[in-house]
């Protein structure tokens, strides 16, 4: 009898599921994954920078050596070589995180016609319950500049927009700044941990980020001139935010 039961059980596992069973299985797995229903993204583009970077993180998480990175020193802020490769600092964040999330830039390319700064806005309000931010980064790609600026340095500043006005400039709060060489290439990483926590608590105060570039003389420069890629650049180099989360408590599944 046992052999027969065992054979039946194997047959059950390997046969194709009927549509009703399939729906039940889908519902059960979604429940295990902690999702109320299956997400329905609007034709997501997998070749943009954020999914590529997240896939690199996923692969890094699979590697057994990944945990070794957690004890390594932080990598230089400007990461060369593969455009989306996670830095050692990201690996450290990853090993401590329960969840990592990248956010799509909400600003359409034609919404940001400014010559002397880049404007970015990210919706951080849709975060799964029970998750707290441990680190967040704003990542902007810097292309190599071949032209006359090659030996120059620039000053990059990232500001949080605090208040907007119709008749004058917005109130800004400087988050981070650094000097870059025109000849450098790679991802610029700005720490956004405090700001992202603030935005999650107060979504109404999320008015976006402003990236400003100045020459060594203090003159405003078009970021594109120095190779900083904005929303109009190649998809795999467009700016995005990545945040690392830890679960704040025991996640209980609802009774069904």
């Amino acid at each position, binding site marked *: 009898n046992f052999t027969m039961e065992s054979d039946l059980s194997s047959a059950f*596992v390997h046969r194709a599921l009927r549509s009703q069973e399939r729906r039940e299985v889908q519902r059960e797995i979604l429940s*295990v994954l902690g999702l109320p229903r299956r997400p*329905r*993204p609007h034709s997501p583009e997998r070749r943009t920078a954020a999914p590529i970077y997240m*896939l690199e993180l996923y692969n890094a*998480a699979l590697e057994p050596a990944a945990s070794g990175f957690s004890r390594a020193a932080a990598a230089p802020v400007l990461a060369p070589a593969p455009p989306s490769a996670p830095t050692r600092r990201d690996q450290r964040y990853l090993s401590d995180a329960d969840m990592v999330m990248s956010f*799509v830039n909400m600003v359409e390319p034609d919404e940001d016609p400014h010559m002397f700064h880049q404007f970015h806005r990210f919706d951080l309000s849709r975060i799964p319950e029970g998750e707290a931010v441990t680190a967040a980064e704003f990542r902007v790609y810097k292309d190599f500049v071949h032209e006359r600026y090659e030996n120059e340095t620039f000053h990059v500043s990232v500001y949080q927009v605090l208040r907007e006005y119709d008749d004058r400039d917005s109130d800004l709060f400087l988050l981070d700044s650094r000097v870059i060489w025109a000849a450098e290439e790679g991802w610029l990483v700005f720490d956004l941990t405090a700001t992202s926590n603030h935005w999650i608590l107060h979504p109404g105060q999320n008015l976006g980020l402003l990236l400003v570039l100045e020459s060594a003389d203090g003159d405003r420069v078009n970021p594109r001139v120095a190779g900083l890629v904005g929303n109009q650049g190649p998809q795999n180099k467009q700016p995005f935010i990545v945040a690392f989360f830890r679960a704040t408590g025991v996640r209980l599944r609802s009774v069904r």
Partner: protein
Amino acid sequence: SAPGHKQRNQNRPKTPKHTPPSSQEALRLAEAAENVSVDPKQGCKKHELYVSFRELGWQDWIIAPEGYAAYYCEGECAFPLNSYMNATNHAIVQTLVHFINPDSVPKPCCAPTQLHGISVLYFDDSSNVILKKYRNMVVRACGCH
């Protein structure tokens, strides 16, 4: 340890011959102890159950993995437990008490003894990307509890 048993024994007339209990359990115990009737096929074992996100039609929102081998545990926890499977100390006690009182105490269960997690990479409704670690998703080893 059941006091009722002791009282009944005291009331019985003493017989020089030991009469084994007529239940099948005693026979099975003896046979199992000699390792005669233990069929390795019946032992608590791990079987593969592959959960394919592709077959579920979820490729549009799950980026990776394509699926995962979830496994499940199946089989009987028959005495002696440690001859062919992982068994907890509790399972041994459970077996002994089951032999004493088979009608009210069940055998130990074949269940996962080691679990490990997986990571899933997926899009949410806003096309943000989420990488989430899920603990205790995959059975690494089965045993008797």
